[in-house]
């Protein structure tokens, strides 16, 4: 299993998770995640090579509904709950022209 988690990795993961953690949160998170990952090493002892991963508890396949029109959510009611909306659409800050 992987080496102990570093602060750099925590910073990278927080960027992936779109969380702007404070310096203090990053420090605390690094220590706590390291502790948990250490505990999780208990499964390293298991031989899992021939075990099939289990992704869902009740295997259903090809769940399709009948191709008929159903009422959808009321657009005004949905947009009314958005932080910002304009002309029947969600409004967001600029998406290009900035570093990501």
């Amino acid at each position, binding site marked *: 299993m992987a080496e102990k988690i570093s602060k750099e990795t925590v910073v990278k993961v927080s960027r992936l998770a779109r969380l702007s953690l404070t310096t203090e949160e990053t420090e605390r998170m690094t220590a706590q*995640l390291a502790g948990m990952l250490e505990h999780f090493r208990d499964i390293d002892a298991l031989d899992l090579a021939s075990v099939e991963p*289990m992704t869902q508890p009740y295997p*259903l396949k090809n769940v399709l509904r009948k191709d008929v029109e159903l009422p959808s959510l009321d657009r005004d009611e949905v947009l009314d*709950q958005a932080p910002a909306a304009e002309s029947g659409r969600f409004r967001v800050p600029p998406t290009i022209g900035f570093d990501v």
Partner: protein
Amino acid sequence: MQKLVDIVAGVTNGSLKASAVVEEHLARIVARESEIHAFNLVTADQARNDAAKVDEDVKAGKKVGALAGVPIALKDNMCTRGVETTCSSKILQGWKPPYDATVVTKLRAAGAVIMGKTNLDEFAMGSSTENSAFGPTKNPHDISRVPGGSSGGSAAAVSAGFAAASLGSDTGGSIRQPAALCGVVGVKPTYGVVSRYGLVAFASSLDQIGPFTSDVRDAATLLEVISGHDPMDSTSIPQAAPSLVSVLDHGVAGMRIGRVTDLPEGCEPDVLARLEAAFDALRSAGAIIVDVKLPSIQYCLTAYYLIAPAEASSNLARYDGVRYGNRVDAADLNSMYAATREAGFGEEVKRRIMLGTYALSAGYYDAYYGKALKVRRLISDDFAHAYEKTDVILTPTSPSVAFKFGSKTDNPLAMYLCDVFTIPTNLAGHPAMSVPFGTGADSMPVGVQVLATTLGEQAMFKVAAELERSL
């Protein structure tokens, strides 16, 4: 406290007014809610209107539903159209969903009266309700102790008589553990028995809605109403749910009850003593106790705390300040996302998003998430072997009675250990329920957990009913 079934019977035959039942429950809320804090929102006006409507229908001779006049509280992670649904998170504070969850639609159609939305650990992540952004719920048996979690508000609401029943959601024990700690019945049905449409998702392959009630018959009655296939939930099981109330008086003669010989360590002796008493009661009623082994459940915490945060990190990506909830403004989109999520999520939610994102990230996926899915298979296989020679399995619900506030908040792993007996069920997708079975240390309630295999609810309810009768 009035039983759900007695309220339905009285309201239906006209001897009891739904309005009077609601007023009794509202009076108890007025008297004690300020110290318990079971609710994020009490919908008193709507409850009064709904109860009056039930009374009018009875008076007019109309047929009323299976839950006519029953005051029911909803965990605040179930969508109610036009009524604030927060998940006890700042990021959703003020959000009024544009639709009802399927369980809400079913409750209303059955004549239930919705009393309000109950407190929880933020996004159902926790075992004590201490992670709620709006402050903790107190245990009605001793307000210096936690009610358990994450559905602590729903458990406390029934325990304190604020509602005759409530609904919670259970991802790793979030119905059963608070039920045990508050001395009420709590049921996690088989994955797929109750629709998740309109339940705010935490870990989609584990989440399941279920009832809290003051006894087993009430739980069976309520579960029958909320069960059933729903085309709006693609994981909903496409077959009719089994009848439960009809089996409650069948007894347990000849049934095989599993005793786990390699139970994870760390359970308090007062809880183990009640478990032994439960085995004795079932043996006296004619059941056969069978030893079973579940060698892989010692790895359940690792599997769960990789799988659930991984799914959560994906599910909670939707809280981005665009379509609903709150936003922290910033100059560009990515900065807005990060600032919104940093301000809106509490510490435990951030911790799990981080853990899940890490477990799914390139270079670590196989070592963590991939392995956890394989361990999940081992645990499921262990149960399959055990159920070849037993009908149900009995374990403690929680390793201890309700603990004091603050006693586990500094150590996330200590809090996670509260779920060691409840998590395996979610990983396997099986049903399980907690039944109050006497008291332990400091006269606090103890719950015994009855587990069964996929769609084994009938066997589970037979045993639960027998345990209740034996007290």
